[in-house]
């Protein structure tokens, strides 16, 4: 006797959704919890290495938007000193052509992705804002040499063997939830 059309399917479905009650939610409570992004992300900011830059302006020429302002003067010896290096991130399309074209690896895409500003003027990234610092790190996009130093991307894996978080019952409260993955 087959129990196919006696409401067994409904019971199976109800059991399935009931099991879902005891799984941890897959939503990330964004401002409180953040995932680690891909190491090769084309972030919203560019990172500039002042000591490597020769002021050749290859980046400015390769920019499809004409968005990079660079002006130099001759310094000691044969080296050019950069006076102005400005990128308007409001107009930038993040194509990464400037990073790919730089002959001296002086420009890299950044890791950051939270660059919303209140004023248009704040979008213009000056020399100081672009320069590499502790919280302004380059990503490994087109710069594989940085890859080892960067944290591994975290995904929502509920399997310990794959480096994910262990599946467990989590209460309703957001505070008791596991920190990311």
């Amino acid at each position, binding site marked *: 006797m087959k129990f196919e059309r006696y409401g067994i399917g409904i019971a199976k479905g*109800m059991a399935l*959704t009931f099991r879902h009650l005891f799984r941890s*939610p897959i939503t990330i409570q964004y401002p409180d919890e953040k995932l680690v992004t891909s190491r090769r992300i084309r972030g919203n900011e560019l990172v500039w290495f002042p000591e490597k830059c020769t002021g050749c302006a290859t980046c400015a020429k390769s920019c499809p938007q004409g968005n990079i302002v660079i002006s130099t003067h001759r310094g000691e010896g044969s080296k050019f000193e950069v006076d102005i290096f400005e990128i308007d991130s409001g107009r930038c399309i993040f194509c990464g052509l400037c990073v790919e074209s730089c002959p001296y690896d002086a420009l890299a895409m950044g890791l950051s992705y939270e660059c919303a500003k209140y004023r248009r003027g704040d979008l213009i990234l000056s020399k100081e804002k672009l320069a590499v610092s502790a919280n302004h790190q380059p990503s490994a996009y087109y710069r594989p040499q940085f890859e080892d130093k960067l944290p591994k991307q975290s995904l929502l894996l509920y399997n310990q063997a794959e480096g994910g978080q262990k599946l467990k019952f989590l209460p309703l*409260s957001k505070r008791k939830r596991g920190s990311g993955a």
Partner: protein
Amino acid sequence: MTLLEQFQLLLKNANWPDWAVYLTPAIAGILLILVFVLTIIIVFIWWERRLLGRFQLRTGPNRCGPEGIFQPIATAIKILLKEDIVPDKADKLLHFVAPIIVFVPILMLFAVIPVGEGAILVDLNIGIIYIIAISSISVIGIFMASWASNNKYSLIAGMRAIAQMVSYELPVVLSIVGVALVAGSFSMLKIVEAQGIPYILQQPLGFIIFFLGALAEMNRSPFDLLEADSEIVAGYHIEYSGMKFAMFYLGEYGIVLAYAGIMATLFLGGWQGPLLPPIVWFLIKVVIIFSFIIWMRATLPRLRVDQLMSFAWKFLLPMAVINLVIIAVEVLVLPLSMQWLIIILNFGFAAALILLWSKLFTLGGGRVEV
């Protein structure tokens, strides 16, 4: 004697004028019911959103207050502050009256739902008949809303509402009659007092029929055809906003609360239970039924219109009639002392009938298609 009558007696003994003796307790009772219902509706909205979120691996609203408990209040403020839009070619009077006609009968239902010993507004001796009569009125309100909106989607929803609610009224009424037969009374208080063993054990089939019928009556998933978001946008309240929409929204949850209360009263033993106070037992039973309804919403897809109608007429109605006959014969033949025999018999009958009917219910060689 209900608490209200005791209050009246107290005022009478204190030599209040006649009109005040009748008016004061009545107004106090009505206000108490209003506050009770609205508070529970707010908790219900929060509970549904949280629990549905957990079923779908989300968290649900958790920002506004502890565990997001104030989210329904924020939603209510948002709805109330919105502009009240009336379509140009709408029937203005019906458009205005419809939400009131939907909401008021639902509030009236709570007059005869006992939440404790004597804690009932009026102990009508025809309590269940009153419920059957009053709960059907909101269909008219829904049809008025759908007609007055001058919108094709809402009109479709109105047609569906009439078809669905009229069809499902019959099995619901017939399964209630089974309860009244065993209890020997239509009064809600007497039915609760008659339940030494909850009637869900004595009449499992009747409970299933009543539950499914009530689910259709209150337009909850999987019978939410008249507000099917993916088919007819929002159904009958598509042209409503502001306070009028809030009335529909409250009415939706109010009728769930009312039917959960009726189910708890008729089948789960009402306020009766050990240790805890009666009101707590009543609320526990109501929340269990409501959580089960949410569980069904999280699982089951919406029925098609023809499936809905054939389920009512071909499955629930014959089952309800057979159930009534079985109960009547048992009341006539078996003595009341053989409760456990009745329970075992009825569980057997329920299982056999459901198996048999699901075999008969299939259309076209087992395919549930036209």
